[in-house]
Structure formats: C-alpha cells, structure tokens
C-alpha cells in the first residue's frame, strides 16, 4: 500500500465509521476494514472500479462526489477521506463543504503544485508540468483546479475550517507542516495531507 494511504490510516482510530470518496479499487478501504475494524463505505465514479470493490466484499456505491454526497446525513461519518481528487472537481469548495458536512472530520490529500520539480518544469521547459503524481498532459488531465499546499492552507483558514494536522509527504518522508515551515514544505513536498474539521 502506498505511503499516502499508510499515513491516512494512521490518522484514523480503530472501529470508526469512514467514507472513502473516490475509493478507486478499494485498497485503502480493505486495509482499514481488515486492520482497524473500520465500518467503511466507498463512493466511486468508475463502474469497473466499483465492480472490483464489490468483488472484494466492500460496501461501495457508484456515484459522483459533486452530486451524490448530499444523500448522506450531517455528521454521519467519523471521517471522510478524499485522496488526490479535489483538483478534479468543477467546484472544489462545494465538495470540501460537503465533506465537512457529512463527516465529523475530513482527511484531504492534494498533489502539491508548489513542489519544486513542478516549478522547475514550468520555469525551465515552459510547458505544463508532468510528474509522477501528475502524469497527464494539459489536454487530457482530469485535474482542472490544481493548488499548492500553501493555497490549501490559506483556503481552509479563510473558511474558518480547523486544521488538526497537516502533513507533507516527499517520497517516503512524512513531516508536519506548520505556519513557520509552510514555505519550505510547499517547496519540497509533492503531496499534502490535511485533517480538517468544521
């Protein structure tokens, strides 16, 4: 399981009720179910991935986070997880609001557009950055609302959303982001993980 998922799993205590938004083929779900006795649900837009989850015995519904989160009652999950998909929504702010309505807490991870490789790519090549985390060309990328760790940090503060924990991931290294090191972390991390609450 990738490092990002291990970090997310560590943030979740045992026997909690969790919704994985954009759960893909259910790797994180399966891990939480088996290792943390999590009461885990998933929402996934791809039919084939939903099928894979069903075959693994996971409770997943086919749906679109921008339309289908509204069916879940307020604070009906302890945690709602959104891994690297915020940037693909038409209206990320609305999705964040929905995550925080449905979940007591939300765990959001974002590919960091402030990562130095991305900056360097644009600076030197003058073309849209392509990295391991962001492998698509500008014309076929699903990512339409990229942001940096700094952007997200400022965004949640301006919306009175509480940040419990913000973590920067760079390869295998995980470190804590705070106000003081924000500029550096925004430069060296390719992924940000935020535990937030409203």
């Amino acid at each position, binding site marked *: 399981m990738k490092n990002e998922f291990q970090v997310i799993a560590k943030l979740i205590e045992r026997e909690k*009720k969790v919704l994985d938004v954009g759960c893909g083929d259910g790797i994180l779900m399966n891990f939480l179910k088996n290792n943390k006795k999590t009461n885990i649900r998933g929402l996934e837009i791809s*039919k084939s991935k*939903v*099928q894979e989850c*069903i*075959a*693994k*015995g*996971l*409770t*997943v*519904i*086919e*749906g679109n986070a921008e339309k289908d989160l509204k*069916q*879940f*009652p307020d604070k*009906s999950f302890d945690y709602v997880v959104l891994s690297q998909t915020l940037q693909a929504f038409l209206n990320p702010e609305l999705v964040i609001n929905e995550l925080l309505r449905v979940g007591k807490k939300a765990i959001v991870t974002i590919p960091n557009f402030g990562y130095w490789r991305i900056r360097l790519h644009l600076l030197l090549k003058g073309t849209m950055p392509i990295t391991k985390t962001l492998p698509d060309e500008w014309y076929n990328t699903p990512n339409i609302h990229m942001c940096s760790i700094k952007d997200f940090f400022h965004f949640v503060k301006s919306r009175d959303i509480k940040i419990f924990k913000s973590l920067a991931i760079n390869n295998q290294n995980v470190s804590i982001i705070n106000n003081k090191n924000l500029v550096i972390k925004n430069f060296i991390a390719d992924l940000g993980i935020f535990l937030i609450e409203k």
Partner: protein
Amino acid sequence: MNTENNIKTLIVKKPLKLDCGKTINEFPIAYETYGSLNEKKDNAILVFHALTGDQFVTGLNPVTKKDGWWSYAVGPGKAIDTKKYFVICANVMGGCMGSFGPSHEDPKTGTAFGTNFPVITINDIVNAQYNLLDHFGIDKLFSIAGGSMGGMQVLQFISNFPDKAKTVIPIACTSSHSAQNIAFNELGRQAIAADSNWKDGNYAYEKTIPNKGLAVARMAAHITYLSKKGLQEKFGRKLQEREDLKFGFDADFQIESYLRYQGSVFVDRFDANSYLYITRAMDYFDLAKQFKGNLADAFRATKAKFFIISFTSDWLYPTQENKDIVIALNSIGADVRFVEIESDKGHDSFLLDVPDFLSALKNFLDKSYIEN
C-alpha cells in the same frame, strides 16, 4: 396452461388478510427449488419473478418446455450457483402457474374466479410467499433477489420481515410505480378488456379466450423491455422475408413480425386475468406511501446488506429510480452497494447474458457467503 403435473404446491393453512380487506384461507402457493438446503439451513436464496415469470427459474420449464426465465443467472456454477445455494422461487399469487389466482375455481360458483378474484398487492404477494420459510424450516434466508417486479417484492419482503434475509438484491426496479409505468400497464389491461372474448373476465365460464387482447398487451409491454438502440441494432428497418414493401398491413418489417410472434407465444402460457391482477399489484406498489412518504422508514429495522443494480438503457425502471432506493438506504446508514451496469439491452438486461451484471451478482453473493 396449468397442468397439475410437475408443479409443487404448498397449501397455506394460515389465513391471510389481504390489503383489500378480504381474508383468504387454504390457498395454494406453487413453487420450485434448485440445489439443496444445507444442514445449517443458511444457504437459501428466495428469488422473486417478474410480471410474466413463474417459479421455473432455470433449466427446462416443464410446462412451457422452454428455458427458465433466469437461466443465465441461476444454475450450477452460475452467478446464483445452485451447487452452493438452495434457490426457492414461488409463482406469485394472482399468477397462472399453480398459485392462487383468478383462473382458480371459485367454490361458490364452480367456475374460475375471473374478476371475482380479490385485487391483490405486492404486499399480499410477499406475505403469501413468506409461508415457504416455515415450510422449509428456514429461519433466515441468505439472500433475496429479483428484477423488475421481482425487485419490488424484494423491497417489500425486507420491509415486512427485516431480520429474515442477510443480503438483499433488488435489480432494475423501483420503490413506487411511476405514472409512465401505470400508463403502460393500463394500455395492456385495456387491450385485454377490448377483446370481445374477455367477457368482463368470465371467459372461462363462457368458454372463450381473449388471446388477441392479451397478445397486444404483451406486444406493447415487450417494447418497454427493450431499448431504442437495441431494437435499432437488431431490427432496424429490415424487411420480413420480402424484397420490398407490400403496400398492405401484413408484417412488412421484421420488428412487426417479431412482436406478433412474441404476442402469439405469450398467450399459450399466460392467463389474461392474471395479467390484469398482477399489473394492478405493480401499479399499487408505493413503498414510501406505506411509511407516510418516507421510504427510508421501510428499511430502518433491517441490518441486511443491500446490493442495488440498474442498467444504463433501462427506461422502464431507470437508474434514477433505483438510486432513490440507494439514497433512502444511505440516509439511514444502511449497508448498501450500488452499480449501474452498462448495457444496451434495456430493462430486459437482467434476464440476458450481460457479463458485467452476472459477475457483479456472483461476486457479491459469493463474497457475502464467505463472510457470512
């Protein structure tokens, strides 16, 4: 139509109070089973058939001599694997394959009930079938499954008996018949009523058969089971055994010939009054209304796992209506899975060889059975 041979029947002794207010006693429920019930009696699946189905789910139907209606999904090694599971299916009340219905003899008159048969509901139908659990000594079913009207019975069953099934699979169905659904059913009923042989339902006494009306009802309904794309690909404007148009009202087009054939074979196996009664039961189905408009309340008492399946090209019970059930279940935190299967075979997709559907069904059942 209704040969007594090959039909297993349970005579229900317990009186059943119907939604219409009447009570029935000592009525027959015809059923069939596949596979075998294990010692723990925890491998039983109750399958519910759709409007024109019957208890002969798979293999050769001994009455019609055709394949059972769910032969693609049910059988040894199939999605509902009869090597593992004990499959039970009953002919619905109001039907014409041995269960209590309008073609049964009314002891008061000595002839078929006809339209003197009480109007029944999906609720009555599942309450009648519930007696099969006692009959087999099954405390809790491993699963209940069905498509179309079968799915409506699944929903009603788990609402009525919340702790009697571990897994619940409503397929291509709705929790409430729409105006369009009712409209198509009414078209079928009026086609039957317009046949002079129908005789206000007393055709058994009059020794006539309203075959023409029933065939037209079937033709109209059959169109609703297919998608526009599916029809276009299969038939297009192809002509039926002729080089050119004949400038008449014979079946010039293959689609006409196909529908006429579907109508003609249907009347050999189905009773016109049964068609009226069962379509009426479907039209009356509104599960939310039974719970003062809150569908979620229908499922509040159950801990069962739900798997809801719809099909992209089904316009009779479209995905949104299936999703409404998912939404109701999620609103109460129920264990619900949902997938919309890509298929251009229309509403009938659940009866056909649609691999994505069959594998989803199999994976869900087998995985749930292991975790059971």
